[in-house]
């Protein structure tokens, strides 16, 4: 079962995500944003970075890349689609997740470990986790402040101590079906004790367990 890790010009976490997935025995391949057929993939991850330089609004330009219609097709048929950090922003801009991400409350880039709590275990990011489980995981963003006037989102992870002003302390949210998830902190950066935490593995395992043959 294969995961497509989408690469836009400006993406920079793609190799980290592939490395982390493979360390869990997952099969992952990089896919250039001009790709128009994800037919032989069973799931998609849009990794972190600065797709198209984040110009105009983060994720605004990326959403028009050819690959995105394929991502929407897979989401529609229930395949797991995960956006990490910048990938979260892209999914919101593409209308695949509710709300949008704006600048952090204090207008500063935040790169540090934060603590999040699992609030929903029926999504592709959390099915192997437990309600209330605390996870120590790095945040790395300037526009990590999620807002949603409609507030029609499922809360998946919540910051224990809201670092960026995100509505409802949301660190990760999902669509109604639970197969499209955006997460602001980086699971792949908490995938190895040597790096300070392996708490993120349960999230990546959840994703891998959610893959079903196309």
């Amino acid at each position, binding site marked *: 079962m294969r995961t497509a890790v989408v690469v836009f010009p*400006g993406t920079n976490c793609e190799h980290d995500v592939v490395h982390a997935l493979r360390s869990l025995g997952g099969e992952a391949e990089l896919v250039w944003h001009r790709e128009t057929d994800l037919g032989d993939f069973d799931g998609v991850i849009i990794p972190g970075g600065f797709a198209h330089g984040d110009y105009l609004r983060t994720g605004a330009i990326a959403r028009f890349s050819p690959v995105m219609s394929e991502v929407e097709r897979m989401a529609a048929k229930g395949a797991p689609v995960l956006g990490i950090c910048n990938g979260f922003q892209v999914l919101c801009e593409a209308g695949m997740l509710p709300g949008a991400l704006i600048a952090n409350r204090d207008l500063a880039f935040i*790169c540090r470990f934060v603590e999040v709590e699992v609030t929903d275990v029926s999504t592709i990011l959390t099915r192997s986790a437990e309600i209330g489980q605390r996870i120590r995981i790095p945040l790395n963003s*300037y526009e990590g402040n999620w807002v949603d006037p409609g507030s029609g989102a499922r809360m998946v992870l919540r910051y224990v101590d809201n670092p960026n002003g995100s509505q409802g302390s949301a660190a990760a949210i999902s669509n109604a079906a639970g197969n499209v998830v955006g997460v602001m902190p980086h699971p792949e950066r908490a995938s190895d004790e040597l790096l300070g935490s392996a708490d993120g593995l349960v999230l990546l395992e959840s994703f891998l367990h959610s893959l079903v043959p196309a």
Partner: protein
Amino acid sequence: MTITGQPVHRRLGMTDEEYESVVGILGRDPLPAELAMYSVMWSEHCSYKSSRAHLRRFPTQAPWVVVGPGENAGVVDLGDGWLAALRIESHNHPSFVEPYQGAATGVGGILRDVFTMGARPIALWDQIRFGPLDDPKNRYLFGGVVAGIAGYGNAVGVPTVGGEIEFDPTYAGNPLVNVMCLGILRQEQLVLGTAGEPGNVAVLLGKATGRDGIGGASVLASASFDDGSQEKRPSVQVGDPFEEKKLIEACLEIFEAGLVAGIQDLGAAGLACAISEPAGRAGVGMDVDLDSVHVRELGMTAPELLMSESQERMMAFVTPANVESVLAIADKWEIDSAVVGTVKAGGTLTVRHGGETVAELPAASLADDAPLYDRPYSRPDWLDDLWEIPEPSSIEPVDALLQLLDDPAIGSSAWVHEQYDHMLFLNTLSGPGGDGSLLRIRGTTKGLAVSTDGNGRLCLLDPRRGAARLVYESALNVAMTGARPMAVVDNLNFGNPEKPEVMWQFRESVEGISEACEALGIPVVGGNVSFYNETDGADIHPTPVVGLLGLADPIPTHLPGLSRANAGLEIWEVGPEATGNLAGSAFQRVVEGAHRGRPTAPQPEAAKEVIELAAALAHQVLVLHDISTGGLAVTVAEICIASGVGAELWVQPDASLFSEDPHRFVVMLEPGTVTLPGGVARRIGTVGGDSLEIGGHKVGLDLLTNTYREAIPHRMRG
């Protein structure tokens, strides 16, 4: 041809003598474009005319040196087919003009120097210095520079994993922004800045050329700030990390496919440098057509096109057969490209614009015939007064420690490094906040350790001892991660070289760095010189900055860390006993508000023994921390704060607590686990409790922690 009475060459920062030698080389008066090229290439920044003679003093040889000074970056052999490329650069003046963009484009420039070699940049370090934060102007510069490094480094996707901050009135009118970059590559991927064989095609890759920073680095960085500097100011360059990211990926793909004979980044002196240096190095000439350069603005003149310092550009030299493939890869990565020239035999550089020949000159002359100055130097007579030993001031250990922890250069740097992505690539085993940084090379047992160090006050009091001690401190820092020192890059930030005192400080610093490197058996593989750090006649303290690369192989399985102390551990001090000399120490600056006395001389033999011992202990103990800024007291306090546990020190609460005498570090270990060599190691205390007790004086951990954490934030809140 004169503008406002001044001959053009003077307006371009060229002396009459220099102009005459240009006439000598050409056998005629130079055309405007030729004059432009010579003026930028012969500027201090590009030609090193005041420093070249002295830089020859550096030891540059070692069996593991693959590329030494002279190329865009130094390259060393890590074994098993792996190479590391490293370089450090300053962007001082641009950062004063516009802190965000100045720092951002500084990051962009040093990245290009490293991936020009065929290396993937894996980490950055920032060395930044400002005036005191009580002045809003300095807060603005500090905040802007940090945001600029974050804005560019994070977006381009290279982690900034360490650095150093200093605040001193000497930098108020002239902040220092130095950035170091490290890259890794496989042996077969090494590329040099050469034009290669006649017939090769010059392909300009990346951003369209505009009127950005014309004469920027060249004129701006080669003259001091004074009332006249307004008119010297070029239009500010704006960095585009997105363009750079695409450029990195495209170039690395081009290198991997082995499609280039050579490549040169466009930095200071832009196109003029990128066509002449590679041609000069290869002993060939070139035909260049400026009309095929892709431009952002219309109506640019030949001199403007040649001098423009527009960012995110590279010049690749390609055999005709490979041009198609190179352009295809550029297209894939959505970067612009243009064939702008052809390499030819016989050393002549011919530049055409609008169908006319605007320059025809010996390519090598721009670099090789650059003026070389042996400027007069003399020891400043004020030094003797400074060397008078100050009468020992009475020490209030707790007050002093709290004052030191509240100093923005000593307190937590989280306010800065949490704005930097320091985790990307999943290699950062030891990041900001510790001693040396340690990055793993995945798929190997190797770790690359880097420390960058500078100390303007120490070098003011004794540039030779001060500069040497920077090398020893960096070496000890990387040893804290289990690494052995391997190579050095240096950034020499000094005042006006036309002043004999400044030139003396420069020579002494070069001497000190050289002596220390020789003692440790490590080469200098690259660096940068920044002169004219002077405002209205006042020179900055001599501020050489050292970046040292070490190799840990294997990486310690359990890396010691400041946060790994716990109750019951023994505390040991290793190294020569502190003499109580406070010359150039943080104690003098923060507590006494002075800098006086002569810094303790480094001890090469002790240094080597201590570095070796530390590198070995990194595999055995829980906590290792070198004793530097703030002395033993601050060193132990930092460990207590990071680990959230107190400690008791059995030492005398005297000057030796705050002395920064070199070659010392603190070890914390489980009783009976490791036996330390009696000669250099002294048991000085025990970990435990919720306060730090020093020779009977007590202070609570909470107070220490809050003071340390708030040092920068409470000042930035104004």
